[in-house]
């Protein structure tokens, strides 16, 4: 039973890591302009943060809309 819980937790972590990789991939394309230094500049840093937040807002929108479709049909 403890083993099972351990396995599930690890699987969940792997899913989270996966989401973080694909969010970084997508938001890097959207937010990062020229590569002049190795730091995120004052535009890029908030853009990356907003990108994560807005992506999650939008995913919730989708789930809500799907829910509405299902209950109304």
């Amino acid at each position, binding site marked *: 039973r403890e083993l099972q819980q*351990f*396995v599930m937790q*690890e699987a969940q*972590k*792997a899913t*989270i*890591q996966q*989401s*973080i*990789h694909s*969010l*970084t*991939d997508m*938001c*890097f*394309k959207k*937010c*990062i302009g020229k*590569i*002049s*230094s*190795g*730091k*995120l500049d004052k535009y*890029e*840093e908030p853009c*990356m*943060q907003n*990108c*994560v*937040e807005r992506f*999650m*807002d939008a995913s*919730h*929108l989708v*789930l*809500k809309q799907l*829910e509405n479709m299902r209950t109304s049909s």
Partner: protein
Amino acid sequence: QVRQEAAVANAKALIEKVNEHCFERCVPKPSTSLSRSEEGCYSACMEKYMAAWNAVSKQYVSRMQREQSSAGFIGGGSL
């Protein structure tokens, strides 16, 4: 052991993404050797990608925590 494998897989995925993005951006026309400026770009790009990954990780985890501590799970963050 499982954890270590997961960490290795995670690091590998990160390195793969760094190479994908930074080769794309810093080496538009591959020639007979990497120039100084290509090397400089690559090294900055790698640092930047890792900073971006860190920023995303923090934001993602903090969002998750806000959502779980608020009432609903789905309804929480959409407005």
